[in-house]
């Protein structure tokens, strides 16, 4: 049985850990002191690069690499801490803010010292009123104790932290949407490039980093690179391992919800399989697992055949899904996948910022099609197709068997793919919200097609048994392609 490894969450339950004094008793700010006393900023960047730390906010992009893109000769530079945590199924940042805000401040301090940044903003999801209150109090205390402000601990390093509440838009979690919102504009993602690292907040180089990513820094600083890279599952014990050139190190705050017996946040080594994770969370509630969303609602779904997939950034990409924010939603045999997709598509149709054409008008369209299917009004015709394609030597008039054609399913897949294409892994939108809409939609449809067909055929939602509902592995597009790193393949 896999054990939790609590690092970021180790002291989460210590009474009054949110106060400076108690935080201090548990090594609080000592890692930062070590950083400014013993390390040059560049050394820290180096450590972060070597640690293999990947951003925990969704994209899983190498933090060290991101830092290396920031031009050091442009002043000022900014840090934006992304605490907008709005991805359905995700709730790990929130506990850090509410319970252990000093840890985040220490992470921010280390990042800013390494990057020569003297102004940091924490963009907090508007609904996190408690989290914001706690963080604000901690920031206040840190100023009083001389850990924020001018000439911190006599080192000559200055840092101011401002917290800023969002106003209730999911898209403000996207890094450039966040920056626009912080600048006081409509939260609409920017066209990239330029990437924020080069031109971000107020057109200055900006590091955008998730709460969890930043909270890794004190421990990396305190314990060193080797300690850090040792965390993470040893590979070689599952059938499908990602390339070792791209290690997934450290722990991940997996948020497990849905049909498990003990939902919650579990801090575990990266690289656990979905099966193991469900076990950690007390096993499935109900008879059996029907499906698992591995990375927040934006991630393509996994069937019960795919539970041996490792839940790390690289492996899930190879399985044509993603770890995203680490929000894992487990569904048992009672769940209807059409209904589930409808729920998710309602969310995305509501949250599209509306800036670009395919997402603005494609997302509600996808929602409406799914709604129609769920309402039992999906279209279906019976067609007689030529026996052979003309290309294979068939002739007009060669008749084949009568075939059921589910027009709305074809339409659904086509519209979704026109926003962002699952097969070519491309998108026609400004930001990857488009992917968050279309990839799940197509994955639900392709992997659980029988349930969609049943809804159309029967004229109402029908929940099939797990076996009946799921497309077998040999017909599963992701399963078939999982070993081929298609992302790195040349297009033909």
């Amino acid at each position, binding site marked *: 049985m896999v054990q939790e490894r609590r690092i970021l969450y180790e002291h989460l339950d210590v009474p009054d850990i949110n106060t400076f004094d108690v935080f201090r008793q548990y090594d609080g700010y000592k890692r930062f002191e070590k950083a400014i006393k013993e390390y040059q900023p560049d050394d820290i960047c180096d450590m972060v690069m070597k640690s293999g730390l990947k951003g925990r906010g969704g994209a899983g992009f190498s933090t060290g690499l991101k830092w290396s893109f920031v031009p050091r000769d442009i002043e000022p530079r900014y840090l934006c801490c992304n605490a907008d945590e709005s991805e359905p199924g995700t709730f790990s940042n929130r506990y850090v803010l509410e319970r252990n805000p000093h840890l985040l401040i220490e992470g921010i301090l280390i990042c800013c010292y390494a990057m020569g940044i003297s102004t940091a903003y924490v963009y907090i999801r508007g609904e996190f009123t408690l989290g914001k209150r706690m963080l604000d109090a901690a920031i206040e205390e840190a100023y009083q104790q001389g850990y924020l402000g001018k000439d911190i601990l006599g080192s000559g390093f200055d840092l101011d932290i401002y917290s800023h509440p969002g106003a209730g*838009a999911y898209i403000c979690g996207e890094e450039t949407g966040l920056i626009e919102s912080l600048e006081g504009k*409509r939260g609409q993602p920017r*066209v990239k490039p330029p990437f924020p690292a080069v031109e971000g907040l107020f057109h200055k180089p900006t590091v955008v980093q998730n709460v969890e990513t930043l909270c890794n820094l004190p421990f990396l600083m305190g314990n060193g690179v080797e300690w850090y890279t040792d965390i993470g599952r040893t590979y070689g014990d599952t059938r499908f391992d990602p390339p070792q050139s791209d290690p997934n190190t450290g722990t991940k705050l997996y948020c497990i919800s849905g049909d498990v017996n003990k939902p919650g946040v579990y801090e575990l080594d990266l690289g656990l399989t979905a099966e193991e994770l469900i076990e950690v969370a007390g096993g499935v509630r109900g008879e059996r697992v029907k499906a698992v969303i591995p990375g927040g609602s934006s991630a393509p779904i996994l069937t019960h055949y795919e539970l041996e997939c490792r839940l790390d950034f690289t492996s899930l990409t190879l399985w044509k899904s993603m770890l995203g924010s680490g929000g894992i939603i487990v569904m048992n045999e009672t769940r209807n996948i059409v209904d589930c997709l409808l729920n998710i598509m309602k969310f995305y*149709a*509501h*949250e*599209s*910022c*509306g*800036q*670009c*054409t*395919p997402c*603005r*008008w*494609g*997302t*509600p*369209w996808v929602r*409406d*099609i799914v709604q*129609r299917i769920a309402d039992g009004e999906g279209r279906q015709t019976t067609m007689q197709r030529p026996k052979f394609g003309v290309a294979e030597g068939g002739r007009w008039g060669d008749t084949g068997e009568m075939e059921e054609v589910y027009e709305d399913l074809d*339409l659904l897949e*086509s*519209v979704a793919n*026109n926003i962002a294409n699952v097969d*070519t*892994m*491309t*998108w*026609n*939108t*400004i930001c990857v919200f488009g992917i968050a809409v279309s990839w799940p939609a197509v994955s639900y449809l392709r992997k659980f097609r029988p349930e969609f067909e049943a809804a159309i055929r029967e004229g109402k939602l029908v929940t099939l048994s797990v076996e009946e509902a799921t497309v077998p592995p040999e017909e599963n597009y992701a399963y078939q392609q999982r070993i081929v790193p298609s992302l*790195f393949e*040349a*297009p033909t």
Partner: protein
Amino acid sequence: MAFIKLNDLEVEVEDGTNIIEAARQHGIEVPHYCYHPGLTRPANCRMCLVEPHVFFPPAGKVVPDRQLATGCTTTVRTAPPDRKLDGKYDFIVRTDSPRVKKAREDILEFLLVHHPLDCPVCDQAGECDLQDFSYNHGSGKSRYLEVKNVPPKKDLGPDVLLYSTRCIVCTRCIRFCDEVAGTGELGLIHRGSHDEIDIPRDHDENPLRLLDNKLAGNVVDICPVGALISKDFLFKSRPWFMKQVNSVCPGCSVGCNITVDYKEDGLYRIQPRFHEDINQHWMCDDGRLGYHYVNSEDRLQIPMKRVDGELVPTSWADALNLVVEKFSETDPDSIAIIGSAQATNEENYLLGKLAHEILKTESIGLFGREPDEEHKFPQFTIDADKNPNTRGARDMLKLGDDASLTEEVFRDGIANAKAVYLVNGAPERPLDETAKQALEAVDFLVVQDIFESDVAQLADVVLPGVTFAEKEGTFTNAKGWVQRIHRAVDPPGEARTDWEIIQQLANRLGGEMNYHFAGEIALDIAENVPDYQDATHQKIGDGGVKLNGGNN
């Protein structure tokens, strides 16, 4: 210069050019909506997707990039020698690959899902990018079965209506108000598929601000679809029923380049025409909406003479004879010729010739509309001088640069004159009391005008001239650009082209002018007026020429 491969062409384009412009320069259309060369580039419509090619190390060759790129924001640059593609290209892009075509079709399908398809009642039909691109790149059928959004029609300001249902949310209008006008009246309300363009409103939906800046009309031009509509033009005409000529706005001495849309019965619409150094893509609403006087019923249509204190219609022969008679009786030193800052260079040149060579008088003056305020915007300025040709008139009449248009100077000019030939031609030109008195003191006043204006009312003989839309000629703007206006419609009634009136009068006074068209006069101007050597109609063309090759 970057050397690029554009589809199957090998072409050179300037560094920093985007793909849309690079393609346009070589006759290839990349359809687009949100991109406008005069505005920033949000890349939100996604219509301009093209296929760049990149070097792919594992394959050791150049391949189409995984993602399509937006042609509006993708710019080409000269690559360092070791980074050339296929050994020689700085950039390789296709605008016609199957992938690109598919993407265009898909975007167009999205653009049309909520569109009311009301082209038959839409003003934009015939000059609509949505229609045109759908026709050229769209699929021709819709797969959309769901309910369409029906956002409300809105009155945004004095001249602009918004048919929200047709809006494709390209934000050109918002960006125009933010960036060019700097007034920022427009914004988006709601979110996602409910996005709507709007002006600020209070909780009862009453406007807090209107789209009423002096450049507002430009949003109608740049709206790629029929969402923003000019009330002035609403339901007036189908574009294909109108004819169009290039011209220059007579509203002020900026000299914005324009197109004039007209039919036999008059002018229908004025729109800006691009000129890099003068007006870019824009014009002001004074110029845009100020054309109605051309169509006015009150235009002078027939010569008039004063009989028993009243102006009564007469024939051209009679009117001209009367002028010749009076002028011949008057000592040349007591004759004043007053040119017009509203008239063309050609007309003022003939007036100058008439004064200097035929009448041999030194009293030459200049008349025109009085200056107003200057209006400055971040990317546009409306000049205080409300005449299109003050500079040119001065040059033609050999008046110094200080020959101003103030009332005092004008009064001094006619103070000692017994007979005055004054050309006006302004759509409106009220006179103050002292100016009236000064003109009343003149024994014999000939006024050439387009309306029964304050000056015309004081005249002994009135000669009906024409507006900018009824004649050929050139204006010199404040910056020294000489530009051409073109005849769109016929003069009303018996009104005649101004230079012809001047020529006839001059010849009856003993001159020997023999011009057949305005361009002929311009040839003489080029020969005789300093700095105008390039200002022949042929050289001026549609783009204008700068005085003395721009060396002044």
